[in-house]
Protein backbone atom coordinates (compact mmCIF):
# COMPACT_ATOMS: atom_id res chain seq x y z
CA UNK A 1 0.00 0.00 0.00
CA UNK A 2 2.84 2.32 -0.69
CA UNK A 3 1.43 5.71 -1.48
CA UNK A 4 4.20 7.07 -3.60
CA UNK A 5 3.90 4.22 -6.07
CA UNK A 6 0.20 4.60 -6.33
CA UNK A 7 -0.31 8.04 -7.77
CA UNK A 8 1.67 7.49 -10.94
CA UNK A 9 0.06 4.20 -11.71
CA UNK A 10 -3.36 5.60 -11.05
CA UNK A 11 -2.88 8.46 -13.49
CA UNK A 12 -1.59 6.20 -16.18
CA UNK A 13 -4.51 3.81 -16.09
CA UNK A 14 -7.08 6.58 -16.00
CA UNK A 15 -5.73 8.00 -19.21
CA UNK A 16 -5.86 4.66 -20.90
CA UNK A 17 -9.43 3.72 -20.08
CA UNK A 18 -11.68 6.49 -21.29
CA UNK A 19 -15.05 4.74 -21.40
CA UNK A 20 -17.54 5.30 -24.20
CA UNK A 21 -20.79 7.06 -23.48
CA UNK A 22 -23.18 4.08 -22.97
CA UNK A 23 -20.61 2.47 -20.71
CA UNK A 24 -20.38 5.70 -18.83
CA UNK A 25 -24.10 5.72 -18.17
CA UNK A 26 -23.86 2.14 -16.97
CA UNK A 27 -20.96 3.21 -14.80
CA UNK A 28 -23.01 5.99 -13.26
CA UNK A 29 -25.87 3.63 -12.51
CA UNK A 30 -23.60 1.05 -10.90
CA UNK A 31 -21.80 3.76 -8.99
CA UNK A 32 -25.06 5.00 -7.53
CA UNK A 33 -26.10 1.46 -6.73
CA UNK A 34 -22.93 0.83 -4.73
CA UNK A 35 -23.05 4.18 -3.02
CA UNK A 36 -26.77 4.07 -2.22
CA UNK A 37 -26.40 2.68 1.33
CA UNK A 38 -23.98 5.50 2.14
CA UNK A 39 -26.33 8.03 0.55
CA UNK A 40 -29.29 6.69 2.52
CA UNK A 41 -27.49 6.84 5.85
CA UNK A 42 -26.23 10.33 5.13
CA UNK A 43 -29.65 11.54 4.03
CA UNK A 44 -31.79 9.99 6.77
CA UNK A 45 -29.46 10.17 9.74
CA UNK A 46 -27.44 13.30 8.91
CA UNK A 47 -29.22 15.71 6.54
CA UNK A 48 -32.72 15.21 7.98
CA UNK A 49 -31.61 15.64 11.62
CA UNK A 50 -29.59 18.68 10.63
CA UNK A 51 -32.68 20.31 9.14
CA UNK A 52 -34.77 19.09 12.06
CA UNK A 53 -32.49 20.67 14.64
CA UNK A 54 -32.87 24.04 12.93
CA UNK A 55 -36.64 23.67 12.91
CA UNK A 56 -36.63 22.58 16.56
CA UNK A 57 -34.54 25.58 17.50
CA UNK A 58 -37.27 27.80 16.05
CA UNK A 59 -40.16 25.99 17.71
CA UNK A 60 -41.57 25.41 21.16
CA UNK A 61 -40.59 21.79 21.67
CA UNK A 62 -40.87 20.36 25.19
CA UNK A 63 -39.34 16.92 25.74
CA UNK A 64 -42.61 15.18 26.52
CA UNK A 65 -45.18 16.85 24.29
CA UNK A 66 -43.14 17.43 21.16
CA UNK A 67 -43.67 20.14 18.56
CA UNK A 68 -45.91 23.00 19.74
CA UNK A 69 -45.44 25.35 16.79
CA UNK A 70 -43.04 28.11 15.85
CA UNK A 71 -41.93 30.47 18.61
CA UNK A 72 -38.78 32.01 17.09
CA UNK A 73 -36.66 33.56 18.37
CA UNK A 74 -37.67 32.70 21.95
CA UNK A 75 -35.37 29.67 22.21
CA UNK A 76 -32.33 31.73 21.26
CA UNK A 77 -33.07 34.50 23.76
CA UNK A 78 -33.61 31.81 26.40
CA UNK A 79 -30.16 30.41 25.64
CA UNK A 80 -28.49 33.76 26.03
CA UNK A 81 -30.45 34.43 29.21
CA UNK A 82 -29.45 31.10 30.72
CA UNK A 83 -27.43 31.79 33.83
CA UNK A 84 -24.80 29.21 32.92
CA UNK A 85 -24.42 30.20 29.28
CA UNK A 86 -21.58 32.74 29.57
CA UNK A 87 -19.74 30.73 32.20
CA UNK A 88 -19.93 27.54 30.17
CA UNK A 89 -18.60 29.28 27.06
CA UNK A 90 -15.69 30.80 28.97
CA UNK A 91 -14.93 27.52 30.70
CA UNK A 92 -15.08 25.54 27.45
CA UNK A 93 -12.67 27.97 25.76
CA UNK A 94 -10.30 27.87 28.73
CA UNK A 95 -10.34 24.09 28.77
CA UNK A 96 -9.85 23.92 24.99
CA UNK A 97 -6.82 26.21 25.05
CA UNK A 98 -5.20 24.27 27.87
CA UNK A 99 -5.89 20.82 26.44
CA UNK A 100 -4.80 21.74 22.92
CA UNK A 101 -1.50 23.33 23.92
CA UNK A 102 -0.63 20.41 26.18
CA UNK A 103 -1.69 17.67 23.78
CA UNK A 104 0.06 19.13 20.75
CA UNK A 105 3.30 19.80 22.61
CA UNK A 106 3.30 16.44 24.35
CA UNK A 107 2.24 14.59 21.22
CA UNK A 108 5.14 16.09 19.31
CA UNK A 109 7.56 15.57 22.21
CA UNK A 110 6.64 11.92 22.59
CA UNK A 111 6.84 11.40 18.83
CA UNK A 112 10.37 12.81 18.73
CA UNK A 113 11.26 10.61 21.68
CA UNK A 114 10.13 7.33 20.13
CA UNK A 115 10.73 8.11 16.48
CA UNK A 116 13.55 5.68 15.79
CA UNK A 117 12.75 2.03 15.70
CA UNK A 118 14.23 -0.04 18.45
CA UNK A 119 12.80 -2.56 20.84
CA UNK A 120 12.75 -0.18 23.80
CA UNK A 121 11.15 2.60 21.78
CA UNK A 122 8.58 0.17 20.43
CA UNK A 123 7.68 -0.67 24.02
CA UNK A 124 7.46 3.00 24.92
CA UNK A 125 5.27 3.65 21.92
CA UNK A 126 2.92 0.84 22.88
CA UNK A 127 2.66 2.02 26.48
CA UNK A 128 1.85 5.57 25.39
CA UNK A 129 -0.76 4.22 23.00
CA UNK A 130 -2.55 1.77 25.26
CA UNK A 131 -4.71 4.40 27.03
CA UNK A 132 -6.05 5.36 23.58
CA UNK A 133 -7.76 1.99 23.37
CA UNK A 134 -9.98 2.89 26.33
CA UNK A 135 -13.19 4.76 25.79
CA UNK A 136 -13.43 8.26 27.17
CA UNK A 137 -16.20 7.10 29.51
CA UNK A 138 -14.11 4.18 30.82
CA UNK A 139 -11.10 6.45 31.26
CA UNK A 140 -13.21 8.99 33.12
CA UNK A 141 -14.59 6.28 35.43
CA UNK A 142 -11.06 5.01 36.00
CA UNK A 143 -9.82 8.44 37.04
CA UNK A 144 -12.97 9.01 39.07
CA UNK A 145 -11.79 6.19 41.33
CA UNK A 146 -8.13 7.20 41.04
CA UNK A 147 -8.87 10.74 42.21
CA UNK A 148 -11.27 9.61 44.90
CA UNK A 149 -10.42 10.72 48.45
CA UNK A 150 -11.82 7.39 49.71
CA UNK A 151 -10.59 4.66 47.39
CA UNK A 152 -7.83 6.27 45.34
CA UNK A 153 -4.16 5.39 45.75
CA UNK A 154 -3.49 8.85 47.16
CA UNK A 155 -6.45 8.72 49.54
CA UNK A 156 -4.41 8.79 52.76
CA UNK A 157 -2.17 11.55 51.49
CA UNK A 158 -5.23 13.61 50.55
CA UNK A 159 -6.72 13.06 54.00
CA UNK A 160 -3.50 14.23 55.65
CA UNK A 161 -3.28 17.32 53.50
CA UNK A 162 -7.00 18.06 53.61
CA UNK A 163 -7.03 18.54 49.86
CA UNK A 164 -8.77 16.68 47.05
CA UNK A 165 -8.22 16.55 43.31
CA UNK A 166 -11.74 17.52 42.38
CA UNK A 167 -12.44 19.77 45.37
CA UNK A 168 -11.58 23.16 43.88
CA UNK A 169 -12.48 24.58 40.44
CA UNK A 170 -8.81 24.79 39.39
CA UNK A 171 -8.10 21.34 40.77
CA UNK A 172 -11.06 19.88 38.91
CA UNK A 173 -10.02 21.51 35.65
CA UNK A 174 -6.39 20.41 35.93
CA UNK A 175 -7.34 16.90 37.00
CA UNK A 176 -9.62 16.56 33.99
CA UNK A 177 -6.93 17.92 31.69
CA UNK A 178 -4.53 15.32 33.09
CA UNK A 179 -7.05 12.59 32.33
CA UNK A 180 -7.43 13.89 28.77
CA UNK A 181 -3.67 14.11 28.24
CA UNK A 182 -3.27 10.58 29.55
CA UNK A 183 -5.98 9.29 27.25
CA UNK A 184 -5.06 11.20 24.07
CA UNK A 185 -1.29 11.92 24.14
CA UNK A 186 -0.47 8.58 22.49
CA UNK A 187 -3.01 9.18 19.76
CA UNK A 188 -1.56 12.57 18.92
CA UNK A 189 1.92 11.07 19.11
CA UNK A 190 0.84 8.61 16.41
CA UNK A 191 -0.40 11.41 14.16
CA UNK A 192 2.86 13.31 14.68
CA UNK A 193 4.86 10.18 13.84
CA UNK A 194 2.99 9.94 10.55
CA UNK A 195 3.91 13.55 9.83
CA UNK A 196 7.56 13.11 10.83
CA UNK A 197 7.84 10.17 8.46
CA UNK A 198 7.01 12.47 5.60
CA UNK A 199 10.10 14.64 6.11
CA UNK A 200 12.86 13.41 3.79
CA UNK A 201 15.99 12.19 5.53
CA UNK A 202 18.23 14.03 3.05
CA UNK A 203 17.15 17.39 4.43
CA UNK A 204 18.29 16.41 7.89
CA UNK A 205 21.55 15.05 6.53
CA UNK A 206 22.21 18.26 4.62
CA UNK A 207 21.49 20.41 7.66
CA UNK A 208 23.76 18.30 9.81
CA UNK A 209 26.58 18.53 7.30
CA UNK A 210 26.12 22.30 7.30
CA UNK A 211 26.68 22.17 11.04
CA UNK A 212 23.17 22.96 12.23
CA UNK A 213 22.56 22.35 15.91
CA UNK A 214 19.82 20.04 17.07
CA UNK A 215 17.66 22.99 18.11
CA UNK A 216 18.21 24.71 14.74
CA UNK A 217 17.21 21.55 12.92
CA UNK A 218 14.05 21.31 14.98
CA UNK A 219 13.19 24.99 14.64
CA UNK A 220 14.07 25.45 10.96
CA UNK A 221 13.30 22.06 9.45
CA UNK A 222 11.06 19.86 11.56
CA UNK A 223 8.53 22.50 12.60
CA UNK A 224 7.98 24.12 9.18
CA UNK A 225 7.78 20.80 7.37
CA UNK A 226 5.44 19.42 10.00
CA UNK A 227 3.00 22.28 9.52
CA UNK A 228 0.29 20.26 7.71
CA UNK A 229 0.33 17.70 10.51
CA UNK A 230 0.29 20.40 13.16
CA UNK A 231 -2.68 22.00 11.42
CA UNK A 232 -4.60 18.73 11.28
CA UNK A 233 -3.88 17.79 14.88
CA UNK A 234 -4.67 21.26 16.19
CA UNK A 235 -8.01 21.36 14.38
CA UNK A 236 -8.89 17.88 15.65
CA UNK A 237 -7.87 18.72 19.17
CA UNK A 238 -9.73 22.04 19.26
CA UNK A 239 -12.87 20.47 17.83
CA UNK A 240 -12.74 17.58 20.28
CA UNK A 241 -12.12 19.82 23.28
CA UNK A 242 -14.83 22.32 22.40
CA UNK A 243 -17.30 19.43 22.41
CA UNK A 244 -16.08 17.94 25.69
CA UNK A 245 -18.80 16.11 27.58
CA UNK A 246 -18.09 12.65 29.05
CA UNK A 247 -15.05 13.63 31.05
CA UNK A 248 -16.93 16.39 32.86
CA UNK A 249 -20.26 14.57 33.02
CA UNK A 250 -18.63 11.58 34.74
CA UNK A 251 -15.64 13.05 36.56
CA UNK A 252 -16.77 16.42 37.91
CA UNK A 253 -20.52 16.41 37.14
CA UNK A 254 -20.09 20.11 36.42
CA UNK A 255 -18.90 20.81 39.95
CA UNK A 256 -17.61 22.08 42.24
CA UNK A 257 -20.06 25.00 42.34
CA UNK A 258 -21.00 24.57 38.67
CA UNK A 259 -17.51 25.69 37.75
CA UNK A 260 -16.84 22.98 35.15
CA UNK A 261 -19.93 23.06 32.90
CA UNK A 262 -19.09 22.81 29.22
CA UNK A 263 -21.35 23.89 26.38
CA UNK A 264 -22.30 20.34 25.42
CA UNK A 265 -23.09 19.56 29.03
CA UNK A 266 -25.38 22.57 29.06
CA UNK A 267 -27.13 21.26 25.95
CA UNK A 268 -27.68 17.92 27.67
CA UNK A 269 -28.94 19.59 30.85
CA UNK A 270 -31.37 21.79 28.92
CA UNK A 271 -32.76 18.83 27.00
CA UNK A 272 -32.96 16.05 29.54
CA UNK A 273 -32.41 17.35 33.05
CA UNK A 274 -34.72 19.81 34.71
CA UNK A 275 -35.86 22.08 31.94
CA UNK A 276 -36.67 19.26 29.51
CA UNK A 277 -36.84 21.76 26.69
CA UNK A 278 -35.60 20.33 23.40
CA UNK A 279 -36.22 23.63 21.61
CA UNK A 280 -33.76 25.57 23.76
CA UNK A 281 -31.26 22.70 23.58
CA UNK A 282 -31.60 22.69 19.80
CA UNK A 283 -30.99 26.43 19.72
CA UNK A 284 -27.77 26.03 21.71
CA UNK A 285 -26.81 23.11 19.44
CA UNK A 286 -27.20 25.31 16.39
CA UNK A 287 -25.14 28.04 18.04
CA UNK A 288 -22.43 25.48 18.87
CA UNK A 289 -22.46 24.20 15.29
CA UNK A 290 -22.06 27.69 13.82
CA UNK A 291 -19.33 28.54 16.32
CA UNK A 292 -17.46 25.35 15.47
CA UNK A 293 -17.63 25.99 11.73
CA UNK A 294 -16.40 29.56 12.21
CA UNK A 295 -13.58 28.51 14.54
CA UNK A 296 -12.43 25.80 12.14
CA UNK A 297 -12.58 28.16 9.16
CA UNK A 298 -10.43 30.65 11.08
CA UNK A 299 -7.95 27.89 11.95
CA UNK A 300 -7.74 26.66 8.37
CA UNK A 301 -7.09 30.20 7.24
CA UNK A 302 -4.45 30.74 9.92
CA UNK A 303 -2.64 27.56 8.97
CA UNK A 304 -2.94 28.18 5.27
CA UNK A 305 0.40 29.15 3.85
CA UNK A 306 0.19 31.66 0.98
CA UNK A 307 3.56 30.48 -0.33
CA UNK A 308 2.19 27.02 -1.02
CA UNK A 309 0.48 26.41 -4.30
Amino acid sequence: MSVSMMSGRDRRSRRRSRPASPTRRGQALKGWLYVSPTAMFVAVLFIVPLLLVVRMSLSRWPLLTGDQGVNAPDNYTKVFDNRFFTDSVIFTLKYTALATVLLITLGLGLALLVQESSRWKGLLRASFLIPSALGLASASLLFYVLYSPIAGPAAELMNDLGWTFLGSPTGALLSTVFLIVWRFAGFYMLLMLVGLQGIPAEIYEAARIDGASRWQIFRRITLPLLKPTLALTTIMCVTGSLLAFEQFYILTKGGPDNSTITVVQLIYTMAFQGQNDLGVAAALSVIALIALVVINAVQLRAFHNPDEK
Partner: protein
Amino acid sequence: MSTHVPISAGPHTPRATDSGRSDGPSAEDGTTTATPAQPRPARRHPTTSIGGLVLRTPYWIFTGSLAVIFLFPLVWTAFASVAPHPGTNQTDGWGFGNYRTLAHYQAGIWQYLANSAFVSLTTVALTLAISLLGGYAFARFNFPGKNVLFLVTLAILMVPYATMLIPLYVLLTQLNLQDSLLGVALVLTMFQLPFSTFMMRISFEAIPRELDEAALVDGCSSWAALWRVLLPAVKPGLITVGLFAFLTAWNDFMAPLILINDSDKFTLPLAVSNLRVQVQGVIDYGATEAGVVVLALPCIVLFLLLQRHYVRGFMSGAFKG
Protein backbone atom coordinates in the same frame (compact mmCIF):
# COMPACT_ATOMS: atom_id res chain seq x y z
CA MET B 1 -10.57 18.42 5.90
CA SER B 2 -8.25 19.37 3.16
CA THR B 3 -5.16 19.02 5.27
CA HIS B 4 -2.58 17.10 3.40
CA VAL B 5 0.14 15.16 5.09
CA PRO B 6 2.66 14.00 2.58
CA ILE B 7 3.87 10.49 3.10
CA SER B 8 6.55 9.81 0.63
CA ALA B 9 7.29 6.19 1.32
CA GLY B 10 5.53 3.16 2.62
CA PRO B 11 5.39 2.95 6.37
CA HIS B 12 6.79 -0.52 6.62
CA THR B 13 10.21 0.42 5.48
CA PRO B 14 12.26 1.77 8.36
CA ARG B 15 13.09 5.25 7.19
CA ALA B 16 16.54 6.66 7.15
CA THR B 17 14.98 9.72 8.80
CA ASP B 18 15.51 7.81 11.95
CA SER B 19 19.19 7.46 11.55
CA GLY B 20 21.31 9.96 13.36
CA ARG B 21 18.91 12.40 14.90
CA SER B 22 18.13 10.55 18.06
CA ASP B 23 17.79 12.56 21.21
CA GLY B 24 20.04 10.30 23.15
CA PRO B 25 23.15 8.50 21.98
CA SER B 26 22.20 6.00 19.38
CA ALA B 27 23.67 2.72 20.41
CA GLU B 28 20.71 0.59 19.51
CA ASP B 29 19.87 2.33 16.26
CA GLY B 30 23.38 1.91 15.01
CA THR B 31 22.06 -0.75 12.71
CA THR B 32 19.57 1.52 10.99
CA THR B 33 21.92 4.38 10.18
CA ALA B 34 22.09 5.25 6.56
CA THR B 35 25.58 4.83 5.14
CA PRO B 36 28.76 4.33 7.04
CA ALA B 37 30.57 6.62 4.62
CA GLN B 38 28.58 9.58 5.91
CA PRO B 39 30.76 11.94 7.95
CA ARG B 40 29.35 12.11 11.45
CA PRO B 41 30.43 13.81 14.63
CA ALA B 42 32.51 11.53 16.76
CA ARG B 43 30.10 11.48 19.71
CA ARG B 44 27.46 9.89 17.52
CA HIS B 45 29.41 6.71 17.08
CA PRO B 46 27.54 3.79 18.54
CA THR B 47 28.87 3.25 22.01
CA THR B 48 28.76 0.08 23.98
CA SER B 49 31.29 1.18 26.54
CA ILE B 50 30.51 1.58 30.23
CA GLY B 51 30.73 5.32 29.82
CA GLY B 52 28.03 5.17 27.18
CA LEU B 53 25.80 3.15 29.47
CA VAL B 54 26.26 5.65 32.28
CA LEU B 55 25.47 8.50 29.94
CA ARG B 56 22.29 6.74 28.91
CA THR B 57 21.00 6.20 32.44
CA PRO B 58 19.10 9.52 32.74
CA TYR B 59 17.48 8.74 29.43
CA TRP B 60 16.37 5.30 30.61
CA ILE B 61 15.00 6.75 33.83
CA PHE B 62 13.16 9.53 32.04
CA THR B 63 11.53 7.39 29.36
CA GLY B 64 10.90 4.55 31.79
CA SER B 65 9.04 6.81 34.18
CA LEU B 66 7.00 8.24 31.32
CA ALA B 67 5.91 4.72 30.44
CA VAL B 68 5.06 4.09 34.09
CA ILE B 69 2.86 7.22 34.20
CA PHE B 70 0.90 5.94 31.24
CA LEU B 71 0.58 2.39 32.51
CA PHE B 72 0.10 3.00 36.24
CA PRO B 73 -3.62 3.94 36.20
CA LEU B 74 -4.49 0.77 34.29
CA VAL B 75 -2.36 -1.54 36.38
CA TRP B 76 -3.54 0.02 39.63
CA THR B 77 -7.19 -0.37 38.67
CA ALA B 78 -6.70 -4.00 37.74
CA PHE B 79 -5.11 -4.68 41.15
CA ALA B 80 -7.55 -2.56 43.11
CA SER B 81 -10.51 -4.37 41.59
CA VAL B 82 -9.47 -7.59 43.32
CA ALA B 83 -7.93 -5.99 46.41
CA PRO B 84 -9.74 -5.73 49.75
CA HIS B 85 -11.31 -2.38 50.51
CA PRO B 86 -13.95 -1.36 53.06
CA GLY B 87 -17.29 -0.29 51.64
CA THR B 88 -17.12 -2.74 48.77
CA ASN B 89 -18.07 -6.37 48.36
CA GLN B 90 -14.43 -7.33 48.88
CA THR B 91 -13.62 -6.35 52.45
CA ASP B 92 -11.05 -8.94 53.49
CA GLY B 93 -8.56 -10.84 51.41
CA TRP B 94 -8.13 -10.73 47.69
CA GLY B 95 -10.85 -12.03 45.44
CA PHE B 96 -13.55 -11.35 42.95
CA GLY B 97 -16.21 -9.92 45.24
CA ASN B 98 -16.43 -6.73 43.25
CA TYR B 99 -17.04 -8.67 40.09
CA ARG B 100 -19.86 -10.51 41.86
CA THR B 101 -21.45 -7.15 42.73
CA LEU B 102 -21.14 -6.23 39.11
CA ALA B 103 -22.66 -9.52 37.96
CA HIS B 104 -25.78 -8.99 40.04
CA TYR B 105 -26.23 -5.28 39.43
CA GLN B 106 -29.81 -4.70 38.30
CA ALA B 107 -30.28 -6.57 35.03
CA GLY B 108 -26.92 -8.29 35.57
CA ILE B 109 -23.69 -7.73 33.77
CA TRP B 110 -24.45 -10.38 31.16
CA GLN B 111 -27.44 -8.39 29.99
CA TYR B 112 -25.33 -5.24 29.65
CA LEU B 113 -22.52 -7.13 27.98
CA ALA B 114 -25.01 -8.59 25.53
CA ASN B 115 -26.44 -5.13 24.84
CA SER B 116 -22.99 -3.69 24.25
CA ALA B 117 -21.99 -6.64 22.09
CA PHE B 118 -25.15 -6.29 20.01
CA VAL B 119 -24.61 -2.57 19.46
CA SER B 120 -20.90 -2.99 18.69
CA LEU B 121 -21.22 -5.92 16.33
CA THR B 122 -24.17 -4.41 14.47
CA THR B 123 -22.22 -1.17 14.08
CA VAL B 124 -19.15 -3.03 12.83
CA ALA B 125 -21.15 -5.10 10.35
CA LEU B 126 -23.07 -2.11 9.00
CA THR B 127 -19.98 0.08 8.83
CA LEU B 128 -17.98 -2.57 6.98
CA ALA B 129 -20.73 -3.29 4.47
CA ILE B 130 -21.59 0.33 3.76
CA SER B 131 -18.04 1.63 3.55
CA LEU B 132 -16.88 -1.32 1.43
CA LEU B 133 -19.55 -0.60 -1.18
CA GLY B 134 -19.24 3.16 -0.79
CA GLY B 135 -15.45 3.13 -1.03
CA TYR B 136 -15.66 0.97 -4.15
CA ALA B 137 -18.13 3.38 -5.73
CA PHE B 138 -16.10 6.47 -4.87
CA ALA B 139 -12.81 4.95 -6.04
CA ARG B 140 -13.89 3.17 -9.22
CA PHE B 141 -17.03 4.76 -10.65
CA ASN B 142 -17.97 8.14 -12.01
CA PHE B 143 -21.49 9.21 -11.20
CA PRO B 144 -23.24 12.55 -10.89
CA GLY B 145 -23.14 13.98 -7.40
CA LYS B 146 -20.08 11.94 -6.43
CA ASN B 147 -18.01 14.80 -5.07
CA VAL B 148 -20.92 16.43 -3.29
CA LEU B 149 -21.88 13.18 -1.57
CA PHE B 150 -18.29 12.55 -0.54
CA LEU B 151 -17.91 16.02 0.92
CA VAL B 152 -21.25 15.80 2.73
CA THR B 153 -20.16 12.46 4.21
CA LEU B 154 -16.94 14.04 5.47
CA ALA B 155 -18.94 16.99 6.81
CA ILE B 156 -20.40 14.66 9.46
CA LEU B 157 -17.07 15.15 11.23
CA MET B 158 -17.67 18.87 11.49
CA VAL B 159 -21.01 18.65 13.25
CA PRO B 160 -21.03 18.41 17.04
CA TYR B 161 -22.22 15.13 18.46
CA ALA B 162 -24.73 16.83 20.70
CA THR B 163 -26.12 18.87 17.82
CA MET B 164 -27.01 15.64 16.06
CA LEU B 165 -28.25 13.66 19.04
CA ILE B 166 -31.03 16.08 20.02
CA PRO B 167 -32.85 15.82 16.64
CA LEU B 168 -31.93 12.14 16.31
CA TYR B 169 -33.74 11.50 19.59
CA VAL B 170 -36.89 12.97 18.02
CA LEU B 171 -36.34 11.35 14.63
CA LEU B 172 -35.80 7.84 15.99
CA THR B 173 -39.03 8.14 17.96
CA GLN B 174 -40.84 8.88 14.73
CA LEU B 175 -39.18 5.89 13.08
CA ASN B 176 -40.34 3.71 15.98
CA LEU B 177 -36.75 3.18 17.03
CA GLN B 178 -37.00 5.01 20.33
CA ASP B 179 -35.29 3.29 23.22
CA SER B 180 -33.84 0.72 20.83
CA LEU B 181 -30.34 -0.70 20.60
CA LEU B 182 -30.71 -0.98 16.85
CA GLY B 183 -31.35 2.77 16.72
CA VAL B 184 -28.14 3.38 18.68
CA ALA B 185 -26.22 1.12 16.27
CA LEU B 186 -27.63 2.99 13.25
CA VAL B 187 -26.63 6.33 14.74
CA LEU B 188 -23.14 5.09 15.62
CA THR B 189 -22.73 3.72 12.09
CA MET B 190 -23.59 7.12 10.67
CA PHE B 191 -20.93 8.73 12.85
CA GLN B 192 -18.39 6.17 11.61
CA LEU B 193 -19.05 6.95 7.94
CA PRO B 194 -16.62 9.85 7.40
CA PHE B 195 -13.61 7.91 8.59
CA SER B 196 -14.61 4.55 7.14
CA THR B 197 -15.67 5.86 3.73
CA PHE B 198 -12.48 7.88 3.46
CA MET B 199 -10.35 4.94 4.54
CA MET B 200 -12.02 2.51 2.13
CA ARG B 201 -11.85 4.97 -0.74
CA ILE B 202 -8.10 5.35 -0.42
CA SER B 203 -7.72 1.61 0.12
CA PHE B 204 -9.42 0.95 -3.20
CA GLU B 205 -7.53 3.74 -4.92
CA ALA B 206 -4.26 2.20 -3.79
CA ILE B 207 -5.01 -0.95 -5.79
CA PRO B 208 -3.84 -0.80 -9.41
CA ARG B 209 -6.79 -0.49 -11.75
CA GLU B 210 -5.32 -3.14 -14.02
CA LEU B 211 -6.32 -5.72 -11.43
CA ASP B 212 -10.07 -5.25 -11.64
CA GLU B 213 -10.00 -4.19 -15.28
CA ALA B 214 -8.48 -7.57 -16.12
CA ALA B 215 -11.25 -9.27 -14.21
CA LEU B 216 -13.89 -7.19 -16.02
CA VAL B 217 -12.35 -8.03 -19.39
CA ASP B 218 -12.48 -11.69 -18.42
CA GLY B 219 -16.21 -11.34 -18.07
CA CYS B 220 -16.60 -10.74 -14.35
CA SER B 221 -19.39 -8.40 -13.32
CA SER B 222 -18.28 -5.42 -11.25
CA TRP B 223 -19.84 -7.18 -8.26
CA ALA B 224 -17.81 -10.34 -8.84
CA ALA B 225 -14.67 -8.26 -9.41
CA LEU B 226 -15.24 -6.58 -6.05
CA TRP B 227 -15.94 -9.82 -4.28
CA ARG B 228 -13.24 -12.04 -5.78
CA VAL B 229 -10.43 -9.71 -6.79
CA LEU B 230 -10.59 -6.52 -4.77
CA LEU B 231 -11.86 -7.74 -1.42
CA PRO B 232 -8.63 -9.56 -0.48
CA ALA B 233 -6.64 -6.49 -1.46
CA VAL B 234 -8.58 -4.07 0.75
CA LYS B 235 -8.60 -6.38 3.76
CA PRO B 236 -6.11 -4.24 5.75
CA GLY B 237 -8.35 -1.22 5.27
CA LEU B 238 -11.38 -3.22 6.36
CA ILE B 239 -9.63 -4.41 9.50
CA THR B 240 -8.73 -0.84 10.45
CA VAL B 241 -12.26 0.36 9.77
CA GLY B 242 -13.76 -2.54 11.70
CA LEU B 243 -11.47 -2.08 14.68
CA PHE B 244 -12.27 1.62 14.84
CA ALA B 245 -15.98 0.98 14.57
CA PHE B 246 -15.83 -1.63 17.32
CA LEU B 247 -13.81 0.49 19.73
CA THR B 248 -16.04 3.51 19.15
CA ALA B 249 -19.29 1.61 19.49
CA TRP B 250 -18.18 -0.42 22.50
CA ASN B 251 -17.04 2.70 24.32
CA ASP B 252 -19.63 5.18 23.22
CA PHE B 253 -21.38 6.85 26.10
CA MET B 254 -23.33 9.80 24.84
CA ALA B 255 -25.52 8.16 22.18
CA PRO B 256 -26.95 5.49 24.52
CA LEU B 257 -27.18 8.06 27.31
CA ILE B 258 -29.52 10.16 25.22
CA LEU B 259 -31.25 7.53 23.11
CA ILE B 260 -31.86 4.79 25.70
CA ASN B 261 -34.20 5.20 28.67
CA ASP B 262 -34.96 1.64 29.68
CA SER B 263 -32.26 0.58 32.15
CA ASP B 264 -32.45 -3.02 30.90
CA LYS B 265 -31.23 -1.79 27.54
CA PHE B 266 -28.25 0.15 28.89
CA THR B 267 -24.92 -0.54 27.31
CA LEU B 268 -21.99 -1.39 29.55
CA PRO B 269 -20.44 2.11 29.89
CA LEU B 270 -23.80 3.53 30.86
CA ALA B 271 -24.50 0.71 33.33
CA VAL B 272 -21.09 1.03 35.01
CA SER B 273 -21.42 4.78 35.21
CA ASN B 274 -24.85 4.41 36.87
CA LEU B 275 -23.57 1.71 39.17
CA ARG B 276 -21.50 4.26 41.04
CA VAL B 277 -24.51 5.65 42.80
CA GLN B 278 -26.11 2.32 43.49
CA VAL B 279 -26.74 2.34 47.22
CA GLN B 280 -28.29 5.57 48.43
CA GLY B 281 -25.64 7.80 47.01
CA VAL B 282 -22.82 5.75 48.53
CA ILE B 283 -20.34 5.05 45.79
CA ASP B 284 -19.21 1.47 45.32
CA TYR B 285 -15.67 2.12 44.17
CA GLY B 286 -14.79 -1.56 44.04
CA ALA B 287 -17.57 -2.43 41.64
CA THR B 288 -16.69 0.61 39.53
CA GLU B 289 -13.10 -0.62 39.27
CA ALA B 290 -14.35 -4.05 38.25
CA GLY B 291 -16.59 -2.40 35.69
CA VAL B 292 -13.70 -0.41 34.25
CA VAL B 293 -11.68 -3.60 33.93
CA VAL B 294 -14.52 -5.38 32.11
CA LEU B 295 -14.92 -2.35 29.85
CA ALA B 296 -11.24 -1.87 29.12
CA LEU B 297 -10.10 -5.47 28.79
CA PRO B 298 -11.59 -6.29 25.37
CA CYS B 299 -10.31 -2.99 23.99
CA ILE B 300 -6.78 -3.48 25.26
CA VAL B 301 -6.60 -7.10 24.13
CA LEU B 302 -7.92 -6.19 20.71
CA PHE B 303 -5.57 -3.25 20.54
CA LEU B 304 -2.51 -5.29 21.42
CA LEU B 305 -3.45 -8.07 19.03
CA LEU B 306 -3.99 -5.71 16.15
CA GLN B 307 -1.57 -2.99 17.21
CA ARG B 308 0.86 -3.57 14.40
CA HIS B 309 -1.96 -3.54 11.96
CA TYR B 310 -3.74 -0.55 13.39
CA VAL B 311 -0.65 1.61 13.42
CA ARG B 312 0.20 0.52 9.91
CA GLY B 313 -3.29 1.21 8.57
CA PHE B 314 -3.05 4.64 10.06
CA MET B 315 0.33 5.38 8.65
CA SER B 316 -0.27 3.96 5.22
CA GLY B 317 -2.89 6.29 4.08
CA ALA B 318 -5.42 7.63 6.52
CA PHE B 319 -3.98 11.09 6.17
CA LYS B 320 -3.25 11.23 2.52
CA GLY B 321 -5.50 14.16 1.66
